[in-house]
């Protein structure tokens, strides 16, 4: 049995087709990325999974149960994290936890999670930073050790340290057999922790890729400045590199796929400055999923 099965899912808002015939499935015990640029329909899909909104057509099954008809039963097995905190400003974290415990029963994971995340449970939510609010939201999503985690852009706006802590927690959950469904518009993030990813654009599925396949579709934007002259011919020999601009001592180029060869080449020279950026998802889509 699949953890999540989405079959021909459609959600229209008037004339706007937010999702238009989406079909994919997620294996149990996997970390599944749900990748797409802003406005692609990721959040709408997640809202259908969570039964916040009702599909225009199609079917969503989670753990073999209908996501709409069996929503109450399913939610006892699902932990949900929104892209930005949905917390009560005048409460503190303990009050949120108490409310959830009264609904779902007592949790013995709260202290562990709070310690791991470095979360302060006593301060009012309105006094907390975005990162600290997200920590509280994560505790609320994880405190009952759900079988399935549905995360909508969980690391957006967070500092790299907190991002890494979240990745560690997710990996640890996966190792315990939990299923994680995670939306993102950050390819590097999905590559880092997911095994498989569905890629959507304009509400339609573009591809479901194994993460190794996705890795080949990376695009790097590289800018380097050297003490000595750049050897154009050596760079040109690297087949997946495209030179955008070449000066006497500097070069800017686009690398598609593996960057290893280029870095090894650069390492032989005296580098004054080096910038390597991941291309945005939009550019990757233009290149690979036209």
């Amino acid at each position, binding site marked *: 049995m699949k953890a999540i099965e989405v079959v021909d899912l459609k959600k229209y808002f008037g004339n706007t087709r937010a999702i238009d015939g989406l079909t994919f499935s997620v294996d149990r015990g996997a970390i599944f990325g749900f990748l797409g640029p802003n406005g692609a329909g990721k959040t709408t899909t997640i*809202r259908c999974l*969570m*039964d*916040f*909104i*009702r599909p225009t057509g199609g079917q969503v099954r989670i753990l073999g149960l209908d996501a709409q008809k069996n*929503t*109450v*039963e*399913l*939610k*006892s097995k*699902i932990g*949900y994290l*929104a892209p*930005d905190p*949905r*917390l*009560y*400003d*005048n409460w503190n974290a303990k009050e*949120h936890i108490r*409310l*959830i415990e*009264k*609904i*779902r029963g007592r949790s013995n994971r709260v202290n562990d999670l709070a310690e791991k995340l470095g979360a302060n449970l006593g301060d009012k939510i309105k006094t907390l930073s975005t990162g600290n609010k997200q920590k509280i939201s994560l505790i*609320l*999503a994880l405190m009952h050790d759900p079988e399935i985690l549905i995360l909508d852009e969980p690391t957006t706006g967070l500092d790299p340290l907190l991002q890494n802590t979240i990745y560690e927690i997710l990996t640890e959950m996966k190792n315990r057999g939990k299923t994680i469904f995670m939306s993102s518009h950050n390819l590097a993030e999905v590559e880092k922790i997911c095994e498989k990813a569905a890629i959507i654009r304009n509400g339609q599925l573009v591809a479901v890729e194994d993460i190794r396949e996705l890795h080949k579709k990376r695009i790097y934007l590289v800018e380097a400045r050297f003490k000595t002259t750049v050897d154009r011919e050596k760079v040109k020999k690297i087949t997946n590199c495209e030179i955008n601009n070449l000066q006497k001592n500097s070069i800017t180029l686009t690398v598609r796929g593996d960057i290893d060869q280029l870095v090894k080449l650069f390492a032989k020279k005296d580098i004054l400055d080096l910038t390597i950026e991941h291309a945005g998802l939009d550019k990757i889509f233009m290149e690979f999923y036209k």
Partner: protein
Amino acid sequence: MLAIFLRTIKDRLVSTLVYIIGEISFIWMYVAIFPSMEDQADELSQAFAAYPESLMKAFGITDMAAMFRKIENFLATENYSFLWPILAVALVVSIGGYSIAGEIERKTIETLLAQPISRIIIFISKYFSGLLIFVVFTAMTVFSIIPLAKIHGVDYFLEAHTKIFILGLLFGGAIYSITTLFSALFSERAKAYFFSVGVIVVMYALNIVSSLKDNLADLKYLSFFHYFNANKALVDNQIDPLAYYIFGGIMIGSTLLAALIFSRRNITVS
């Protein structure tokens, strides 16, 4: 269900206490000045005699001399025809408007929807917690007459106050249910407040207009303020039977419709 119910009450506790203390302060003032008004009833009646009859009718004053004879007459005119309904409306509109539309606007509704409880349970918890707050407000303000009358040595007729308590509950309950309906329909508090207050203002205006011209008299039947007849409840110890049907019907109808809309609608926070 109990968790959300109790939490909602806790969140509204301070503001509800402010409403209750504010209204009791006014009732205390009316009760405190009533003995001296009673002593000067004739002089005051003469002084008010110069006021236009239609204006007095608009404010529910039909017998000026009687107004100072009993505390019930005095409170019916001074408190329950104007101040109490305003406070009651403000309280129920603020609670009802926040209960769903406010939660959607502040995105906190997702925290509740992500839990293993049905939307109907969320709705019932929210609705009845608000209703209980209003019952407490009505009981505490109306029955504050008991200790206050004793403090100031004023005679009162408990049965009449019980009537205004029932009528007040029906009146406020109907407005609360209408506000909850708008709250279930919209995703912004401002819209829920706007439409609820709009309905109330129109009904208030209809009641005033109907008392000014005979050919418009039937418009009063479209107004809650016609059925919320404080004079009749407190002075005559009666409630118009139609008030039970109108307020009760609107309460039940609006609440069922609100529950249906909330359980079926798309809830998107942004």
